[in-house]
């Protein structure tokens, strides 16, 4: 009898230990990040080496075109991560994250524009080509400072962050939620699109910003610069992923999930839910903006089309396909759907939208948890890591 009870206490303390451990953000990071980072950097480094050191006629050669494409996919993955943070964890279905992405892209584009200097078609030392074309005499005030890299990077985070704060503050304080919020975010990105289409805005109208030459003094057309941008994107994706895992694994993350599942309950427990939502929205918007800033130098153009409501809806489809509320699911979804898009638009461009629609419908019907849900259900990897991670726990 005494033996039994002491065994029970022992089991109790053991279970207690794992229970509290699960609540620690560092534990979550150890559990979820290594695999993700290993795969991400494995592919990144492999592709970079194969591009630089493998001869062009070898089957292992990775073309610079592919490197740029991969870099672009990673930007989209970062963007999907941003949407998953608000949608998957807090239930805020934002159909306007493309706006933050594009704003970040524009801030980077303005820096790249200023870097052109007098190498433009019109050869004006200060004004970008489109301003000379429009007979503008001097640089508008809001273009000042963008010749400095640090200032441009600050604006990449600050402008979208501020917009998200103001929008979020007004919306969440008035307790706008659900489909109404989604419609408002659509309206936000649509309004910005219309505004950026206007030539008078001073952002290049419908042509946007393009014809970039170099970034931080490195030629954008060079293979090495492209690889550096690709690797930078991978590093930032890894950092954003780890930061998100830690935030979602902390008590803050649990409050956010609590707000998603029962907002009233959280409020009556003393959490100011609107403040939580606003800051999460800002965090997510800044990640989306950084993704946009990394995207622009790699594709070489930013135009108002990026604000189009359709783009924002597409991001939501990536996250839904990958699986909400898992972070890695969003990344997988973004990579897969965009790869499919690249292949599809090459083979039969007209069919792509139908394929995307079919994908979304079939995922919603057959895989409500997305690809991450399938991985979770029969995860031999997880079983393997669990067996090695807790040999003591297995016996109890």
């Amino acid at each position, binding site marked *: 009898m005494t033996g039994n009870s002491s065994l029970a206490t022992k089991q109790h303390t053991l*279970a*207690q230990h794992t*229970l*509290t451990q*699960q*609540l*620690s953000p560092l534990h979550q990071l150890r559990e979820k990040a290594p695999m993700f980072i290993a795969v991400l950097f494995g592919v990144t480094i492999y592709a970079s080496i194969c591009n630089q050191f493998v001869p062009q006629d070898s089957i292992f050669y990775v073309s610079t075109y592919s490197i740029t494409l991969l870099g672009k996919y990673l930007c989209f993955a970062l963007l999907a991560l941003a949407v998953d943070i608000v949608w998957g964890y807090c239930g805020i279905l934002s159909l306007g994250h493309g706006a933050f992405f594009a704003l970040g892209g524009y801030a980077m584009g303005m820096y790249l524009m200023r870097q052109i200097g007098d190498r433009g078609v019109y050869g004006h030392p200060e004004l970008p080509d489109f301003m000379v074309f429009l007979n503008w005499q001097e640089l508008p005030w809001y273009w000042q400072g963008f010749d400095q890299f640090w200032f441009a990077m600050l604006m990449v985070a600050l402008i979208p962050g501020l917009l998200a704060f103001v929008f979020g503050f007004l919306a969440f304080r008035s307790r706008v939620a659900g489909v109404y919020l989604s419609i408002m975010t659509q309206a936000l990105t649509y309004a910005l699109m219309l505004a950026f289409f206007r030539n008078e805005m001073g952002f290049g109208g419908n042509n946007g910003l393009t014809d970039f030459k170099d970034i931080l003094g490195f030629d954008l057309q060079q293979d090495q610069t492209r690889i550096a941008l690709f690797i930078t994107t991978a590093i930032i994706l890894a950092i954003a992923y780890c930061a998100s895992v830690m*935030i979602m694994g*902390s*008590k*803050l993350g*649990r*409050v956010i*999930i*609590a707000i*998603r*599942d*029962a907002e*009233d*309950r*959280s*409020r*009556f*427990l*003393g*959490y*100011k*839910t609107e*403040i*939580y939502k606003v*800051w999460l929205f800002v965090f997510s918007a800044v990640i989306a903006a950084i993704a946009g800033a990394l995207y622009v130098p790699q594709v070489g153009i930013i135009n108002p089309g990026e604000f189009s409501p359709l783009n924002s809806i597409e991001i939501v489809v990536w996250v839904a396909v990958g699986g909400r509320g898992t972070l890695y699911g969003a990344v997988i979804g973004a990579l897969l759907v965009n790869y499919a898009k690249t292949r599809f638009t090459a083979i039969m461009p007209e069919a792509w939208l139908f394929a995307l629609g079919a994908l979304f419908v079939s995922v919603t019907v057959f895989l409500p948890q997305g690809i991450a849900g399938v991985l979770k259900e029969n995860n031999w990897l997880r079983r393997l890591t669990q067996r090695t991670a807790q040999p003591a726990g297995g016996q109890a």
Partner: protein
Amino acid sequence: MSMLDNMRETMRRDQVWNFLQPPSVAVNVDKQILLYIENLSVSFDGFKAISDLNLYINDGELRCLIGANGAGKTTLMDIVTGKTTPDTGSVFFGQNINLLGKTEAEIANLGIGRKFQKPTVFEAQTVYANLELALAYNKSILPTLIASLNGEQRDRIDEVLNIIGLREQRAMIAGALSHGQKQWLEIGMLLIADPRLLLVDEPVAGMTAQETERTAELLTSLAGDHTVVVVEHDMEFVRSIARTVTVLHQGSVLAEGSMQDVQNNPDVIEVYLGESH
């Protein structure tokens, strides 16, 4: 006329102006009354949910509110917890804290806990995490980001797990609990913050007889240290716990007293008990 009223309200001699009050004050219960509800009225689209209601809850008592559907019980709780703003009237927590104009979160942090009619717990998280979220601590965003459980808090969670009898289920996802267990978990989430006032809306709805009995025991044991206000339809349950019962009818108090008095009150027999007997 309304200007005169405003003037009077501003110049009240028994109150200190809001901006002169220190930011956080301990609740003052010198008169042994914890909750003052006076001349309260609220209407939704012309329907008077609460009309000129006066109610005083003593410190440390267990009070039952009964009344037919639409008598204003849940609306009353909504007003006290800050979800609904009344048209007129005043709600004071102790003698010194005006609850009107405060948000739900502020009121919760003053020590007023509320259990919903439908059990509401965080279904995607474990029982343990549910209780962790309900602990009393600084609930603003940065302290929450870096919060980790200390020994005292762990002991507190264990203590509450024992009280609500969910020790075995603590690693379970809350969504997998039975209806009755969810009710208890929600009560536990209120208890863990050690609130001054507990507002409990239909705690035994959907419970088995045995579960109901245990809930009655739990609530009676809480009274004294905490003040408990229970809204309940189950007359058997009310009879088993109540010392003082308040009967609401059409948004105001119809009768108040011991169960015995209330049952023999002719008005009550007519409008409420009369229907069920």
